[in-house]
Each structure stands twice: as C-alpha cells, then as structure tokens.
C-alpha cells in the first residue's frame, strides 16, 4: 500500500511531467488557452499514457528483451503508440459519439506528444528508486499506475495553467511579451509552486 501511495505521489507531484521533467510542453502551451480544451486534452493524454504503457511494457520485457532486440525500442514504441491512438479514436467514435466530439480532435495530436513516448521509455528503465524491489508482475502493475498518475499530474497542471491564462486575457501585455512569452513566464511560476512538493519524502 505504501508503495502505491509513493508511486502516485511521485508521479503526480514530486516528479510532475510538466513542471519537473518538462515532457509534453507542446500541448501544455498550445491547448491551454481554454479550461474546457485543457481538460479534454488532459483526459485524452492520461488515457493514452496508461494504455500505451500497459501495452509496451510487456512487449519490451517479455518479447524484445528475450529476443535481444532492445535497440529497436524507439521504432517499436512509436508505432505501437501511433496505432493505439488510431484504434482508440475509432473505438471512442463508435461507442460514444458525444465523448468523441469532446476529445476526438485531441487524439491525433497525442501521437507526437513527448509525454506518451517519454513515460513508456521511462518505465522500462531503472525504476527502483520509485518502486523499491518488487516482483516482475508487481513492477508491471506499478508501471501502469505510474503512467496513469503521471497523466493525472499532467491534467492537473494543464487545468491550473488554463485558468491562469483565462485570467491573463483580461489584462494588457506588452506587444513583445504577448502570446508564448507571457505564457512561459506564467508556467515558470507554476513550476516554482510545484518545487514545494520536492520536500515530500516518500
């Protein structure tokens, strides 16, 4: 139980993907102008991150390592993610047209999102610092949990940022700072706030 809490806290707060690892900045800056679109993007990314890790982790550990083709991981992973996203899009379109209307447009963008490829690459590396020593099956479960929690952390920061940017629209900014620069300065303050969570020792 303690390990599960530690993994969730690490993924959501202490090692937040945007503010600490700086993965997935393109959607963070591009889709955070409105809260509704930020939530849609966040949910889509969370879903794809969890499913992608659930698929790539066993493929890497139980197929690629025994066959000694670990060096092909980038090519394999990017293809698995691209086809997963395509498949997910079709499934959501069939099952729930309203959900598709809400987050369908964000799905194709996710293929080239560093956060998804980043988390799949991260969990196959050395995660002892987060998990402690656990069995192979438990490591698989924790990896999927880590990916899901990292997606939640991503969504959290997206929502905070979109709220701040909606407020920011009410003020006049100097011409050179308008657009991306002021968004980055805002993001910098969010990062500073998240630095507080470094003191959580789990």
């Amino acid at each position, binding site marked *: 139980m303690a390990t599960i809490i530690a993994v969730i806290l690490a993924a959501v707060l202490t090692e937040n993907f945007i*503010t*600490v*690892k*700086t*993965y*997935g*900045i*393109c959607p963070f*800056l591009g889709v955070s102008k409105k809260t509704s679109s930020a939530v849609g993007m966040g949910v889509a990314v969370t879903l794809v991150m969890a499913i992608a890790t659930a698929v790539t982790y066993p493929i890497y550990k139980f197929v690629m390592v025994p066959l000694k083709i670990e*060096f*092909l*991981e*980038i*090519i394999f992973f*990017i*293809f698995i993610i*691209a086809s997963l996203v395509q498949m997910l899009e079709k499934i959501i379109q069939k099952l729930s047209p309203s959900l598709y209307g809400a987050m369908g447009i964000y799905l194709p963008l996710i293929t*080239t*999102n*560093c956060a998804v*490829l*980043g988390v799949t*690459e*991260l969990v196959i*590396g050395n995660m002892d610092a987060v998990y402690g020593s656990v069995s192979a099956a438990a490591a698989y479960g924790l990896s999927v949990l880590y990916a899901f929690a990292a997606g939640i952390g991503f969504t959290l920061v997206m929502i905070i940022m979109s709220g701040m940017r909606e407020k920011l629209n009410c003020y006049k900014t*100097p*011409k*050179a*700072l308008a657009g*991306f*620069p*002021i*968004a*980055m*300065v805002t*993001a*910098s*303050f969010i*990062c*500073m706030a998240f*630095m507080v969570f470094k003191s959580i020792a789990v």
Partner: protein
Amino acid sequence: MNKYKKITLDGLIFQNPTFMLVLGTCPTLGLISSAFSAMGMGLTVIVILTLSNVLISLLRKLIPNEVRIPCYIVIIATLVTFARMLLEKFVPDLYDSLGGFLALIVVNCIILGRAEAFANKHNPLEAAVDGIANGLGFTCALTVMGVVCEFLGKGSLFGYHIMDFKIGMLATPAGAFIVYGLSIALFVYVIDVFQRARRVKANKLARENLMTQGVE
C-alpha cells in the same frame, strides 16, 4: 545563390524554430540548465535533421501521400536509434546528460515539421541546406540560453566553475521557462525593431526617388 541565402536566413533568424515558431520546446526546457547538454542536443539535432531532410527529399516521389507521416516517422526513428547507439558508444558523457530526451528526438516537432513543410517539396540539396540552417538556429538558441541559465544558475560555464554567486532557481525548470519566455520576447522585439528601421529606410528612399522624379 539567392535561394540558398533565403533558406539559411529563414532557418537561422526569420523562422527560427526555437524563438519564432516555438517548436521542440520539451528538450529546450529540459536541457538548458546546462550549456554542455544544450549544445550536445543541438548538434545531435543538426545531424538527424539534415539526414532526415535529405532522405525524405530523395524519397519524396516514392512515398505515397496518404501514408507519408508514418514513413517519415520510420525514417526519423531509425536515425535516432543510430544516433543513440553511436552516442552511447563514443560520447557516454553526453549520452548520460541527455537522458530521456535523446529518444524523444523522434517526436521533436522541428524534424517532422521540416519534413512536412519543406523536405517533401524540395530537392535534396535545398533540403540539406534547410536542415543545417534550422538545426543551427536551434543549436544557437539552445546554447545561448544554456550559457545564461548555467552561468547564473550554477555559476559555471560548460562545467567549469567560474563564480560562487548563483541563483539556484535558474538551473531548474522554473528558471528554464522564465529564461526561454524572456528570450523569445527579446528576440521578437529586436527583429521587430530591425524590420521597422528597414521599412522606414525603404520608405525614405522611395520618397526621395519620387521627389527627384518630380523635380525633373
């Protein structure tokens, strides 16, 4: 010759991928806390971008339009895999300092963006020039910001200790965001001032021409 000059200037300044188009932000923000890793990232991207541009440009008549994006991704992923193996073998320091961002070059928007916007419409030589120019633009931007962040944040330059005074915040992602944001603002402002000055000069010239013609 003029064509190549335009491609180079666009890649380096007027369409600089880092400052003007704000592409490839993840490695930028993740690596500018150290000038060495920022420059290493830039150099790796130059090589991969130039090779991918040339390859895609050579294959542009063979790749069917409907499946072009997956084809580009295969080419880029293969190049990144090669780069990763070579760096791990020959430059292990850089390999360690780039960490996860080395694999993430595959999803770097600059490379796919140049393939889609330039390389599939131009001949290999132009594509190579474009790749080098854009890669250089990216490298220069990263190195400059890396030097600023490392000098102020760690009191050192390329790993060599220089001073004891340091603002630790600038060596973290928070500092990276603020330095990147302010650099974009400064870059856009300087270019704006130059272009305005050039416009004023051109207007003045046109007016003088008109005046002399009127006198004649």
